[in-house]
């Protein structure tokens, strides 16, 4: 019944081409390009929270929760985030420092049409584990930037680091000001597609230790933002980002989030 209701909604949304019936077809076609023939199981080492229906397809919140069961000594070393139906399906690949048994990571992404969103976790035994959620959103990759281009250039690469320990959660957030142009947005002045321009590499360190690093694509939203498990321990936090034009942005913050 749920499927029928979902299918009816898919019909109702004129902008949402891939019918649910296609289901896994796109995944089957892109999977070998991403992971080769390596088996992927559905062991629950990572959770994925995504809105069933996104309010803003250009800013879809995605939460990943690494949680290995008690007594399981493995660690998760990498997470790949995928939106099947996006023109560039691989949203980002994250590597997790020394590997993690428990780690939360949230970001905001663009969803171009109704699609499965998947997270594939790699454990330190080399195995891959997948979780997925269906998101109803359309037009996220072509939606115009929210920020004025001049303003975006003036603030390019500026970073913010916030610590949420005051709220009782061991979390921090990094934001980098960057238009992260997808290449699929129309420039309202030139009436042509705005060239793709986005944060390609990002590394967040606590002292010398990498908390996480990312290889990102055009499906990460404007002003890339990452919220992650973090405990202040006196060491400074440094953030380094590089975009597709070769611009490098670096900033260091006090570990408690003060400046």
């Amino acid at each position, binding site marked *: 019944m749920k499927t029928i209701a979902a299918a009816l909604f898919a019909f109702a949304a004129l902008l949402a081409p891939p019918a649910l019936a296609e289901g896994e077809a796109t995944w089957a076609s892109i999977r070998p390009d991403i992971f080769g023939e390596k088996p992927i199981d559905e062991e629950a080492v990572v959770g994925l929270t995504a809105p069933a229906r996104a309010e803003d397809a250009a800013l879809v919140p995605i939460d990943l929760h690494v949680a290995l069961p008690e007594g399981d000594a493995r660690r998760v070393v990498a997470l790949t985030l995928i939106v099947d139906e996006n*023109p560039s399906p691989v949203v980002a690949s994250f590597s997790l420092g020394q590997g993690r048994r428990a780690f939360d990571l949230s970001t905001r992404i663009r969803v171009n049409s109704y699609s499965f969103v998947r997270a594939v976790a790699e454990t330190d035994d080399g195995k891959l584990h997948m979780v997925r959620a269906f998101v109803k959103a359309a037009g996220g990759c072509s939606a115009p930037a929210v920020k004025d281009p001049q303003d975006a250039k003036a603030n390019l690469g500026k970073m913010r680091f916030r610590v949420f320990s005051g709220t009782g959660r061991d979390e921090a957030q990094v934001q980098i000001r960057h238009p992260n142009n997808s290449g699929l947005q129309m420039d309202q002045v030139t009436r042509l597609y705005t060239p793709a321009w986005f944060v390609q590499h990002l590394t967040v360190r606590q002292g010398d230790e990498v908390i996480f690093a990312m290889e990102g694509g*055009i499906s990460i939203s404007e002003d890339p933002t990452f919220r992650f498990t973090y405990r202040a321990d006196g060491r400074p936090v440094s953030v380094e980002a590089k975009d597709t034009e070769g611009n490098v942005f670096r900033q260091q913050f006090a570990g408690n989030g003060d400046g």
Partner: protein
Amino acid sequence: MRRLALSLALCAGLAFPARAEAPPEPADYRQDDYRAPTPATLAGATVVTTAEAAQLWHEGKTVFVDVLPHAPRPAELPAGTLWHDPPHRTIEKAAWLPEVGRGALAPETEAYFRAGLEALTGGDKARPLLVFCKRDCWMSWNAGKRAVAYGYSHVYWYPEGVEGWADAGLPMTDAEPRP
């Protein structure tokens, strides 16, 4: 909710009445929100149903032009970036000229449209042209209006587009944008 009701009717295979909510023709090109109900008319052009479009297609004298927009793979993507671009199904033998139905065109897009039409019609402005994209898509309306403004004297606008064609089981093919 209304859309849902219409869709339910479609799903159930029921006939539904002609769109009651067709807006009047604007004086100028539609500039945004392209996926929305379109007018019932296009000044200077002839609106055709699927059956009429099929007849023109079988007669073989009319140039069919699909104007569905299409973003190419951004040239700036790092080498090796996976790009997933499923084939676009269109009416068999139609030419696909993406982007030419937007509200305002870059000079190069305008030149592309003019040159495309000229080549497809052999420079004969009296040659019949049929413009389409999808249902409820103002881009085909805009492009039809533009072709009329270019001086084409026999422009057909087919608002049901690829979806109406496909629903009727008429011949379709994978398309590549005209270079």
